C-alpha cells in the first residue's frame, strides 16, 4: 500500500474561513458533558484493569534535585541512608481516534461557514478534550486519497498533529468514494485494539457499508458521531431549472426545482436519509451530535451533549 502523506490530494476549498474562535473555557465545559455522555471513558475517568491508577511501583531510585518530595520512599531512604523516591507506572492512558471526513462534499456551505470548517472545528475540540490528562489522540482523514493516518500522540503534539492534518483542507472534487468513511472506520477498528473513544466527524453522505462497520466499532469503543449538515441540503429552493454536480463523483443532474412535487419528494428523501442515519447511530450506541453550518456550532455541540 502506498503511504500517502497527510495533505496530499487535498486543497483548501474556496470560501473556507476556518471554524472560528474556540474559547478554552467553553471546551472545559464541554468536557464535563462529554464525560457524562460517553460513560467515563475520557482520560482521568478511565478505570484501567488491575491496580488503581498511578499506584503501581515501577522502580525506586535515588532522589534527584527537582523530584517531588512527596514521592520520597521513607523505608528505602532509611535502609540505604540515601533519599530515594518511588517511581510509579503512569496511569493507563486512553487512546482516542478522531475520524474526520474530508471528502469533497464537505466543501459546501451556504450559511455561516463551510461544512468542512465546522467539521475541523469539531475535530479540534474533540482532540483537545481527548488529549486532556495525557490522553493519546490519533487521526484519520476519511475520503482523502490514501486515507492518511496520524498515529496516536499525547499532549500538545497530538493537538499540533491534528491542526496540521486538518490544515490541508478537503479532497478535490470527483475524488470521493461511496465507501470512504466505512473504509476509514474499518481501519480504525483494525488499528485500535484496546477499547477507546472514537469520534466521527462527517456529513455521513458516503454511507456505503457504514452501518455494519459502525455497529462493530460500537461494540468495542465509545462512539461519538458528529453529523455536519447545511440547511440547503434539507430542502431545495424553488429556483427553476438547475444543473447540479455531485462534488463526490462529479455526477451531473439537471432538475426543475420549480416542481413543487419534486421539492417535496426531495425533502422527504432527505428526512428519510437522516432518520435512517440516526437509527444506525442508535444501534451502534453512539452519541449523535448534529451540527449545522448555520449559527454557533460550538454552542450546538454543547447543546447536543446536554440532551439526553
Amino acid at each position, binding site marked *: 500500500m502506498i503511504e500517502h502523506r497527510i495533505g496530499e490530494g487535498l486543497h483548501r476549498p474556496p470560501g473556507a474561513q476556518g471554524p472560528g474562535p474556540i474559547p478554552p473555557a467553553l471546551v472545559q465545559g464541554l468536557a464535563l458533558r462529554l464525560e457524562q455522555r460517553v460513560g467515563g471513558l475520557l482520560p482521568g475517568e478511565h478505570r484501567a484493569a488491575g491496580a488503581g491508577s498511578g499506584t503501581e511501583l515501577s522502580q525506586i531510585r535515588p532522589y534527584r534535585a527537582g523530584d517531588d518530595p512527596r514521592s520520597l520512599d521513607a523505608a528505602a531512604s532509611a535502609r540505604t541512608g540515601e533519599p530515594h523516591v518511588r517511581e510509579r507506572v503512569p496511569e493507563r492512558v486512553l487512546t482516542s481516534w478522531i475520524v474526520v471526513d474530508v471528502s469533497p462534499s464537505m466543501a459546501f456551505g451556504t450559511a455561516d461557514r463551510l461544512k468542512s470548517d465546522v467539521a475541523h472545528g469539531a475535530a479540534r475540540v474533540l482532540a483537545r478534550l481527548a488529549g486532556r490528562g495525557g490522553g493519546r489522540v490519533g487521526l484519520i482523514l476519511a475520503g482523502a486519497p490514501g486515507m492518511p493516518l496520524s498515529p496516536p500522540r499525547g499532549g500538545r503534539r497530538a493537538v499540533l498533529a491534528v491542526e496540521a492534518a486538518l490544515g490541508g483542507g478537503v479532497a478535490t472534487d470527483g475524488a470521493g468514494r461511496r465507501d470512504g468513511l466505512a473504509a476509514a472506520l474499518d481501519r480504525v477498528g483494525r488499528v485500535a485494539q484496546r477499547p477507546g473513544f472514537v469520534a466521527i466527524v462527517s456529513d455521513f*453522505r458516503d454511507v456505503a457499508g457504514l452501518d455494519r462497520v459502525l455497529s462493530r466499532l460500537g461494540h468495542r469503543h465509545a462512539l461519538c458521531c458528529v453529523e455536519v449538515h447545511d440547511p440547503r441540503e434539507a430542502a431545495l429552493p424553488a429556483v427553476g431549472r438547475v444543473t447540479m*454536480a455531485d462534488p*463526490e463523483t462529479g*455526477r451531473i443532474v439537471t432538475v*426543475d426545482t420549480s416542481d413543487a412535487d419534486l421539492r417535496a419528494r*426531495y425533502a422527504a*428523501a432527505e428526512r428519510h436519509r437522516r432518520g435512517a442515519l440516526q437509527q444506525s447511530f442508535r444501534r451502534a450506541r453512539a452519541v449523535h451530535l448534529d451540527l449545522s453550518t448555520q449559527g454557533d456550532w460550538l454552542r450546538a455541540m454543547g447543546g447536543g451533549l446536554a440532551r439526553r
Partner: protein
Amino acid sequence: MSFGSPVALLALLAIPALLFARSAARARARRNAVRFPGVPVLAEVAGHETAWRRVLPLGLVLAALAVMAVALARPQTTVAVPDERASLMLVLDASRSMEAIDVDPSRLEAARAAALAFLDEIPDRVRVGVVGYSDRPYTVVRPSLDRTATDGTIRSLEPLGGTATGDALQAALEVLPRRLDAAGRRPATAIVLLSDGQATDGADPVAVARRAGSARVPIYTIALGTPDGVVEGGPFGGVLPVPPDPQTLAEIAAVSGGAAYEVDDADRLKEIYQRLGAQLSTKREEREITAGFAGAALVLLLVGALLGARWQGRLP
C-alpha cells in the same frame, strides 16, 4: 422533386451549427454546475430520464429546422394538370382495307367505337379535330371544343379507296394551331393516327412525320388488324390480304416523338385510346409545394416544443 432555389439548402448547415452550439452550451452548463452534496438523493428522487425522452424533443425541432430549410429552397413537384389549351387531331384511316373483319366486328367499326369512346374520355376543354382519309384526306374537321362535328364525322366514315397516310398527316398538321400563347409557349398538340395498312398513295408519311416532329407535334400511331386480315374483291376477284404495316407506323411515331401501338382486337384499341386520352389532355407542370413543407415544419416544431416543455420543463 426539384427546387426553385437550391442555394437555400445551405440553410441545412444550421443543424450541425445548432448541435455544436448546443453541445458547447451544455459543456458550459456542466462546467458551471452548482456543487450540491444532495445530488445522489436528488437523482434518485428525480428518476432516470430515458434516452429517447431526452433526445426526441430536440430531434423533432431539428427535423422541423431541416424541413424549414427545404421549404426555403422552394421545393417543386411535377404534377399532371389538365391542359386547357391542348389540341388533338384524330387521323382515322377509312380505306377499303378497314372493311376486314379480323377485328370484331370490323376494323372500321372497332376504330369508330374506340374513337367515340376516346372523345368521351378526354376533357371538354381539349380541342379535338378529325381527319378521315382514304385516297386523300376527304373530311377535315378543325380542332374545336364542339364535339358534334367531330362526332358526326367519325360516325359517317365509310371504307373506300386507298391509303394516303402522308397526305392525311399533312392535313392534320396544317389545321393544328401553331400560334404561341401569351406566355410564349407552344400549345400542346398531338396527332393520333389509326391506320391498318401500308400507305399506298400520296406523300411519304415518314417525311411528313419528320416535319411534325420538328414542329413538336408527336404522332401516336395505332396499327390495327391482324396479319391475316383480308378484304373481298381483289383486282381479279377473290380475296385481297390486307396486313397492317406496323414498321412504317412505328417509324412515323419514332421520328415525330410519339409512340406506336399495335392492336388486333377492339378492347385493346379502346384501352389504348383511353391511355392516350389521359396522356395527351394533361400536361406536366411544376408545382411549388412549399406550403406543405412549412406546415410539416410547423407541426414538428409544435410537437417538439410541447414534448420538451412537458418532459424537460423547457424548450429543447
